[in-house]
């Protein structure tokens, strides 16, 4: 029996090798196949079967060849390793790394989302002569090889919601979270709680989660990975990948394919190489903290040494995170840092942290992400300007502190007191003087006259809702900026003509006076971002900052330089993000605009950095922060992980800003998809959309390609997003300014200067 098992093992290894090196013609693989074929032949013909020594010899040959082949792995081979059914999965890790575990929140098919696995796990070990048990919350995607219901580790929104729920449980119980990223990407369904919006919520909560979080990356596909991957320490398995998009997806975009067509394997291979997705690339760029070496050709469930190594690594990393913020660490901190061997197990450190230590932990995590991706953008600001900006920042912060915190708070308190006193006095006066007044009214002649009735028209005007159709709340036709399209002498048909019977519109009217809105049905034609800049945000009088931050090509992606240069030349911008300070009806605000004409409004390192700086500026100046999204296609894939890392980075910035008491408003226009919506935009408590905007996680093409089901043409329409609860209101374009002002006055946090 043992012999049969060993032969089966060899067969699996051979198949594995052949699968990984898909169609590559390699001498070693041919040799292995031939040797194994010979062995099988002999095993079947000779009654005694293969001899023990022969088996040992051929196993050695397999070991040797695997080591040799391991050195020739290309990035795409690694992708195939990670996706292979023989690859270790989370269940294997739970079985082999932890000493005991209890799956919670569902098991197998009986689960909210079987692709997200949650377990309470325990490390039991002997330190000195004591046995200690340390609890952790394990959260991760389970690929469940061969289990179709696991959906290959593609988590649906409710799965991510489940993960968030148990992160909160871990926070309550003060135990560390170990997150295992085993996902090719999130499943793109928009049903409540919404793929994008739920990832955004997860990121937002993780940005301030008050427990140590360690994440292990095996297969990290974009948004799905980020939903649980924002961690204090990120360990990456040496044969894993972490990328903004799957190589196939990148190749499809590169080749400009329509859905249904297939790209060539060469192009996919090339994209995998260019995207810099391997563990070494990510370590070099600083997006993971450590790489854990796997056995040759990747870890499989029988590599028990690897599990042991992973266990040591997890314990040591958790110790490290804890010791970096613990007040009482003494000699142990040093021991933790230096331990490279098995003695990580012998160092005992309580993983429950005090409140002050948790504050330090969160702060450290936020700083860590703030410092990332510096190399992936160009800062053209001179040394002097930078120094001036830094000084200014300090002065603003000090000024805000003095004016709004030190003095402002006292003033607010006084005001509140006077208000209360005034209200009391009013009541007292009312009680005392009212009977007197009534008597006087009765006694004195000529004073019992009736009050003049308020006219019906006045009452009507005061109580009726605003209606843009009547022109009641419109500014009129005098827009500060009109689209150049309004110069054309022609008409255009409204797309709703079949249902609403709209008359054809004369273009100068439509884009001039009507601001691109059909006066008959309210359909919004797409409008240039300049229109909003001038008519809503008063850009000509605004103060732009960080103009010199420039998008570059950090990975040296082929032909991307020319594409970038073209975009820069055409739009006159250096990146897709414009940040400026302006005043909306005399309320000073900081605005960040993502404009679609620059590479689809995609977000890369420069855009992320600008966004973060804008949020920081708003914090320092105690001003509201508005993100106007003219359009965004998602994360810029040509920047690879440099782009994806902007999701946690910007979310952290937004979280810091909101925690500091600011008002963060998001306004969507035209098409907003993917990464940004699934992070720093989607986490805003106030998100509004201009009519006819489309909001979602993946576009219709990607959805039909990945899930195999077509979505209705208006699936992502703003009204549907509203009914699903993703956004909180829909605005008419002509009323954006009025509504923004209204929101600034009625919503938001405690630290705004004008409150």
């Amino acid at each position: 029996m043992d012999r049969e098992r060993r032969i089966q093992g060899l067969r699996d290894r051979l198949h594995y090798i052949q699968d990984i090196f898909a169609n590559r013609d390699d001498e070693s693989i041919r040799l292995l196949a031939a040797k194994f074929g010979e062995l099988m032949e002999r095993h079947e013909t000779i009654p005694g079967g293969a001899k023990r020594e022969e088996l040992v010899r051929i196993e050695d040959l397999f070991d040797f060849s695997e080591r040799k082949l391991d050195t020739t792995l290309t990035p795409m081979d690694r992708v195939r390793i990670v996706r292979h059914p023989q690859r270790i999965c989370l269940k294997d890790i739970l079985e082999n790394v932890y000493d005991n575990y209890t799956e919670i929140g569902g098991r197998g098919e009986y689960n909210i989302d079987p692709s997200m696995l949650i377990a309470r796990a325990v490390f039991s070990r002997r330190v000195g002569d004591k046995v200690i048990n340390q609890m952790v919350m394990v959260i991760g995607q389970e690929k469940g090889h061969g289990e179709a219901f696991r959906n290959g580790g593609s988590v649906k929104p409710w799965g991510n919601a489940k993960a968030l729920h148990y992160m909160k449980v871990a926070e309550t119980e003060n135990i560390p979270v170990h997150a295992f990223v085993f996902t090719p990407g999130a499943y793109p369904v928009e049903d409540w709680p919404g793929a994008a919006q739920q990832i955004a919520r997860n990121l937002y909560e993780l940005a301030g989660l008050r427990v140590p979080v360690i994440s292990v990356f095996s297969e990290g596909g974009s948004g799905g990975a980020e939903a649980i991957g924002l961690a204090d320490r990120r360990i990456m398995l040496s044969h894993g990948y972490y990328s903004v998009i799957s190589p196939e997806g990148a190749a499809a975009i590169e080749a400009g394919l329509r859905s249904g067509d297939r790209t060539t394997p060469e192009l996919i291979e090339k994209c995998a190489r260019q995207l810099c997705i391997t563990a070494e690339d990510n370590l070099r760029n600083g997006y993971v903290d450590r790489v854990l070496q796997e056995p040759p050709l990747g870890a499989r469930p029988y590599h028990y040494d690897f599990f042991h190594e992973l266990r040591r690594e997890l314990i040591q990393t958790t110790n490290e995170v804890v010791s970096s913020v613990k007040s009482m660490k003494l000699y142990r901190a040093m021991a933790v840092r230096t331990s490279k061997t098995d003695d990580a197990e012998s160092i005992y450190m309580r993983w429950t942290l005090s409140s002050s230590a948790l504050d330090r932990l969160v702060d450290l995590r936020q700083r860590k992400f703030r410092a990332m991706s510096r190399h992936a953008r160009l800062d053209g600001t001179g040394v002097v300007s930078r120094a001036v900006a830094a000084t200014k920042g300090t002065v603003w912060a000090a000024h805000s502190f003095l004016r709004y915190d030190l003095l402002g708070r006292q003033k607010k308190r006084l005001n509140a007191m006077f208000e209360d006193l005034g209200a009391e006095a009013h009541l007292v006066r009312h009680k005392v003087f009212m009977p007197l007044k009534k008597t006087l009214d009765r006694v004195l002649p000529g004073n019992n006259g009736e009050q003049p009735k308020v006219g019906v028209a006045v009452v009507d005007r005061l109580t009726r809702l605003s209606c843009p159709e009547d022109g009641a709340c419109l500014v009129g036709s005098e827009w500060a900026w009109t689209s150049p399209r309004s110069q054309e002498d022609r008409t255009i048909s409204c797309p709703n003509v079949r249902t609403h019977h709209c008359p054809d519109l004369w273009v100068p009217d439509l884009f001039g006076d009507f601001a691109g809105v059909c006066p008959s049905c309210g359909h919004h034609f797409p409008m240039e971002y300049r229109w909003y800049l001038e008519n809503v945000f008063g850009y000509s009088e605004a103060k732009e900052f960080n103009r010199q931050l420039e998008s570059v090509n950090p990975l040296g992606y082929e032909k991307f330089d020319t594409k970038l240069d073209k975009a820069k030349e055409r739009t006159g911008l250096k990146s897709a993000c414009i940040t400026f300070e302006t005043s909306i009806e005399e309320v000073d605000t900081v605005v960040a605009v993502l404009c679609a004409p620059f590479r689809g409004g995609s977000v890369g390192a420069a855009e992320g950095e600008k966004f973060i700086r804008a949020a920081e500026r708003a914090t320092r100046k105690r001003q509201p922060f508005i993100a106007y999204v003219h359009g965004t296609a998602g994360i810029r894939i040509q920047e690879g992980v440099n782009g994806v890392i902007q999701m946690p980075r910007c979310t952290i910035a937004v979280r810091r800003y909101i925690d500091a008491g600011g008002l963060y408003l998001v306004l969507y226009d035209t098409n907003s998809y993917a990464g940004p919506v699934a992070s720093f935009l989607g986490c805003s408590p106030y998100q509004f959309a201009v009519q006819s905007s489309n909001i979602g996680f993946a576009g219709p093409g990607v959805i039909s390609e990945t899930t195999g089901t077509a979505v209705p043409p208006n699936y992502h329409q703003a009204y549907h997003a509203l009914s699903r609860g993703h956004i909180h209101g829909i605005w008419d374009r002509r009323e954006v300014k009025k509504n923004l002002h209204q929101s600034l006055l009625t919503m938001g946090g405690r630290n705004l200067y004008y409150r």
Partner: protein
Amino acid sequence: MLNIKELLDKVKASPYREIVVRAPHTGVVSFASVKPGEKVHGPRGEFMEKPGTLLAQLTREKNEKPILAPEKGVIEAVHTRFEGQFVEAGEPLVTIKHYMTRKEVIELILQEALYLFRAPERAKYYFVPEVDQKLKVSGKRSVKVHDGMEFLIVSRMKRETPLAYSGPEGIIYSVYFGRGENVDEGEPLIGVCPEDQLSVIQDVVARIQSEWEEEV
């Protein structure tokens, strides 16, 4: 009483509908490259999101408007004399011969032959328990309705009122609403067939099912 045979003969004599595509408004016409005898298709796709074949372009005030085939069929005539001309609204541009599908023919005959009882208001409709049971156990065509018979329940916003049938006596031949489905005002609820005509109608439907060639 309706002569079903006559009706069927009429359909058979001309098994198609002629669709005349007219200019929706004034403008200059330029025809796409469609010729008589060519096949065209109507809107397709799961959500009818893919537009039909382009027949012509109508330009008014530099606004080009495509004119698309509304249904599947064969081009009968293209009024090419209007090519490059300014036409008035309603001018016929293309004629499409739409061969009726099996379903359409059955529907057509049923609509003519049956008495359609229509929904008096937008609401959900249910059969009263006795009728419902009978329908479930013995299938459609087992229930006979007569004038004044209370056989439906109108359910709207938790208000449930009985609804009496009014019309000629007969057998429920087809039911046009589903359980828990909102039916708009004026939409047919059931089709009623006089008892003596039942076998004739069933015959006709069976014949169309087997003989009619044109499918969806």
